């Protein structure tokens, strides 16, 4: 393990779709499954897979319920999820700095 910022990136968070899910969830108190699906342009199955990965890592919580007869699934960021997102953004910024130093 070296001190290079790439080594600080977390596979679970760094993946494009999962980073998108965490970013969206961070902007709201909670987000609905359908909103994530249309915003990220994913199929329901694909989104479910990514959500399971994030839930297993303890980064999001998933609440299923009903509003009237309509089933709804709400996703919220956990404290660990917020910290992981912050860490990812920090690592990305460090990586960009290193790239710019290298090319400068």
């Amino acid at each position, binding site marked *: 393990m070296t001190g290079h910022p*790439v080594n600080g990136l977390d*596979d679970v968070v*760094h993946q494009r779709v999962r*980073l998108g899910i965490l*970013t969206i969830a961070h902007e709201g108190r909670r987000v609905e499954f*359908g909103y994530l699906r249309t*915003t990220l342009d994913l199929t329901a199955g694909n989104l479910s897979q990514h959500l399971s990965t994030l839930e297993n890592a303890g980064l999001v919580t998933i609440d299923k319920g009903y509003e009237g007869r309509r089933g709804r699934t709400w996703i919220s960021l956990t404290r660990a999820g917020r910290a992981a997102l912050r860490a990812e953004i920090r690592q*990305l910024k460090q990586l960009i700095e290193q790239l710019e130093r290298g090319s400068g």
Partner: protein
Amino acid sequence: MATDGPDPRARLAASRGLARRVRRERRATWFPLLVFAVVTFLAIPVTRNGHAVGLNCRALPVAGPPLARVCVAHNSAAFVYWPVALIVAYLVIAAFHLHRSRARGVAGRIGPYLVVGVLLAVAVTAGSVWASRTVLTGRYDIVGWHLLGRDVYQLVAPACAIGLALLVLAAIERSVALLLVTLAYLVVAVGGVDLGWRIAAPSPWTFVPHLVVAGGILLLASAGFAVAQRPRPRPGPPGG
């Protein structure tokens, strides 16, 4: 180690773009502004139909004619109207946000806004009771500001509660535009600016210019935000 994605710059830009887009879609700044404008305009007939009670006078503490004195009275209807109207306004705004978050699928953080709103309504009530019993005739130093009695009354007026609630909303929504509108509102409403429109006593409508100007700013801002935040076609999914 993760290497998914070609360029960290593109990944960071995509993440920021997504955050901006969600924030934009979540905002409905026009609604609280509209509610507070309505509350301000409704105060006009309410205040007109109330009457001055609890007249409280004190002689001026400066050398002058023996009859020079300052009197404070409160309007019976406005005294009850403002705390009730502000609490109802916060409840309506909270209900709107809940409804909208269900419809859109993204819920914002309304809790801090509600807590601050109710605290401000309580503060307005306490401030009104205090102001109706206190005759301020001198100069006052409040956290380094030199204020006259009438300035102190403005600080405990409902307009100040509306302005502070909007400041909290600007912080929650991270909206610079709302912050600027709120500062302009506070200068006009709390500073007692009437834009040169005055109705002289003994007309019973002397309070109208102040409320019309303050309500007008809120209404104009609401219309501006409604246009700026109208739904747009959704862009494609983020790249990177």
